[in-house]
């Protein structure tokens, strides 16, 4: 038995317990009190938090192991404080069959450092045409359905997908992008795209499809989750829908509250991501949405790429940011230390809330529950060094930035999945 000693425990369900010892085996044996332990880990002055839950990441396996694989991706996740991650199906082959879902789960069981929950595709090959065998995907262990990376272009097909999925209990996660408005766009459409001469992606490319999904969910009385919300307009639509009682939830990603489209100046393709970095006003709207509860979840959209896919012309570079290893620190730096969210709220949006939306029994600490937890120093300053990432993807615009707050130790099922080198 391990005793994590003297930290401030946030149980993820509203309880704050200062100076508390936590005893763990593969489960949490006891929170508080005194027991005999084989090993003592000093956490005085640190926080003991539920392991983070990422409901949106790309592990790239099968098919793109040169970008990332389940082993390297989950190692990076552990370093970022995540103990459960849900990975998107845009692999090769697409996760649109029971066999491919099982492959990811089995692979994760043998080489994974954290718990991996595959998300199945909504349509075969993510082509937006034929629905996948959703019951089979559910049976094989898919925790949600999404064509992430691609929108489902037809409203009619999305309607049928929502209806059909409702009997499987699986949530549909929608990547909202009206492609006729994207029209070859490379970055947010605004004064920066005009000056840089890059084709713009208007905010309405996201908002029109967010509106569509809300109307469908409302009319059908079904739920839907909106992936990576990035614009003030989308947030406003979701806010109103929630007020009307529509069963819509949504996530944003750290880069949408930590960076804006001015970062594209200089054409560094590490700033290229989809949806694109938006305006300073959008960043403020994201913060407001997080603060007033419109945005339920912070997900990473961890999207590792090979450097050959980023150190090229902006227009040729692929979209995506390697996000596991900076997500929590960006949340602390830009949300908690600036007073947008309390630490409890940040942890809820990165653990309990995504777990609840996916129906996972995770994201909180309780006696008898799995020992998935982290020790974090929320005041520690450090400088991001992408070359030191555990992820194969070094593609981050935050390389070289100084952030405040770091995960020191990650336990999954009571076993150390990550320990920061030289942490003491």
């Amino acid at each position, binding site marked *: 038995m391990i005793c994590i000693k003297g930290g401030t425990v946030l149980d993820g369900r509203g309880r704050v317990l200062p100076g508390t010892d936590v005893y763990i085996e593969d489960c949490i044996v006891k929170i508080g009190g005194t027991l005999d332990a084989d090993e003592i880990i000093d956490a005085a002055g640190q926080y003991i938090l539920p392991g983070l839950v990422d409901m949106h990441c790309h592990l790239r396996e099968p098919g793109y192991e040169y970008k990332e694989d389940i082993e390297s991706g989950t190692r990076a996740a552990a370093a970022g404080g995540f103990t459960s991650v849900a990975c998107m199906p845009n692999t090769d082959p697409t996760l649109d069959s029971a066999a491919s879902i099982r492959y990811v789960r089995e692979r994760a069981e043998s080489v994974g450092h954290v718990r991996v929950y595959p998300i199945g595709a909504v349509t075969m090959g993510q082509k937006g045409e034929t629905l996948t065998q959703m019951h089979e995907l559910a049976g094989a262990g898919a925790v949600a359905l999404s064509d992430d990376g691609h929108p489902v272009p037809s409203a009619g097909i999305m309607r049928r997908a929502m209806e059909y999925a409702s009997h499987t209990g699986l949530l549909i996660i929608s990547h909202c992008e009206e492609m006729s408005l994207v029209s070859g766009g490379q970055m947010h459409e605004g*004064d920066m795209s*005009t*000056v*840089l*001469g*890059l084709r713009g992606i208007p905010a309405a490319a996201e908002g029109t499809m967010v509106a569509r999904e809300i109307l469908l969910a409302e009319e059908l009385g079904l739920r839907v989750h909106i992936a990576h919300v990035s614009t003030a307009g989308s947030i406003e639509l979701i806010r109103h829908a929630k007020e009307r009682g529509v069963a819509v939830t949504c996530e944003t990603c750290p880069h949408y509250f930590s960076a804006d489209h001015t970062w594209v100046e200089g054409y560094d393709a590490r700033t290229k991501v989809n949806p694109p970095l938006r305006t300073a006003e959008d960043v403020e709207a994201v913060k407001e949405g997080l603060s007033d509860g419109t945005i339920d979840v912070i997900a990473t959209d961890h999207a590792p790429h090979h450097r050959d896919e980023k150190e090229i*012309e902006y227009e040729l570079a692929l979209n995506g940011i390697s996000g596991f290893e900076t997500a929590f620190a960006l949340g602390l730096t830009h949300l908690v230390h600036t007073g947008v969210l309390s630490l409890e709220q940040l942890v809820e949006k990165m653990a309990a809330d995504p777990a609840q939306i996916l129906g996972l029994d995770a994201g909180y600490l309780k006696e008898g529950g799995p020992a998935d937890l982290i020790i974090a120093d929320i005041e520690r300053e450090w400088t991001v060094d992408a070359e030191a990432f555990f992820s194969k993807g070094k593609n981050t615009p935050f390389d070289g930035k100084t952030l405040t707050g770091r995960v020191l130790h990650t336990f999954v099922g009571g076993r150390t999945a990550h320990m920061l080198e030289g942490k003491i």
Partner: protein
Amino acid sequence: MIGQKDLLGLQGMGPAKMTQILDAADSMRRILDQNQKKVPHLQGKTIVTLFYENSTRTRLSFELAAKYMSANAANISASSSSVAKGETLIDTGRTIQMMGTDVVVMRHPMAGAPHLLAQHVDAAVINAGDGMHEHPTQALLDMFTIRQKTGSLDGLKVAIIGDITHSRVARSNIWGMQAMGASVRLCGPATLMPVEIERTGAIVCRRVEEAMEGADVIMGLRLQKERQQGGLIPSLREYATVYGINTERMRLAKKDVIVMHPGPINRGVEMTSDVADQAESVIEEQVKNGVAVRMALLYLLTRRRESHDLH
């Protein structure tokens, strides 16, 4: 001598530096008007033009500029399709570098490509047009030509008419001319006007008459035929009627207005033939000015390197 390694764009370049370039171009222009055109300024230097888009005029202009100044000049043509499949730009740049190149002049269909190249080579990089971003040497030669006729750009009213969205010439001229004290008015269909272009300081006019009223300089931009296929304008005919520069509208401008066009002109679309003839007469002058401006830039950028090497 102009204190920078590369010339990637005119955005942010101050009027002092631009004046320095234009003044140097004045001297070069005098050389071009002599019978003996060869000067030794760039003896021992190597200039490579690397063009990923077709161009005759700009490329020849650079090549002649280099040769008149006794530099070695070599040309590399890469097709646009090789951008996506062939060697990476960084690798190409390094190869050119290893061959002892002092200046790389690059044209590329993608915005920001010269910036990428410039970060990875020690050679000076001159942007000869990158996507919809900038075409600084074209704007400098436009400004040089105007200055030749008016003495100064300060206080001039410039109207740029047409497809602003896709025009790197327009963007460079907006930055350059405004820095030199001119005011710039823009007009074109809303589908060809980039969002928030007002943030550059330029004034957007809905009606072409409004833009041309009292103008000292009118610049027409080429309307690519594929803009109609792309659904950005309904027809060339309507475009010509509503936004075309014709003799009647020319009466709104100053009497001695300078008509410019980066060429080639679609006669009867962005300009009627009568107006195009006026523009053509300026274009002839600009060909010579273009060589002078490029000589000045090659000289200033390589001089900078030399003084850097000495210290």
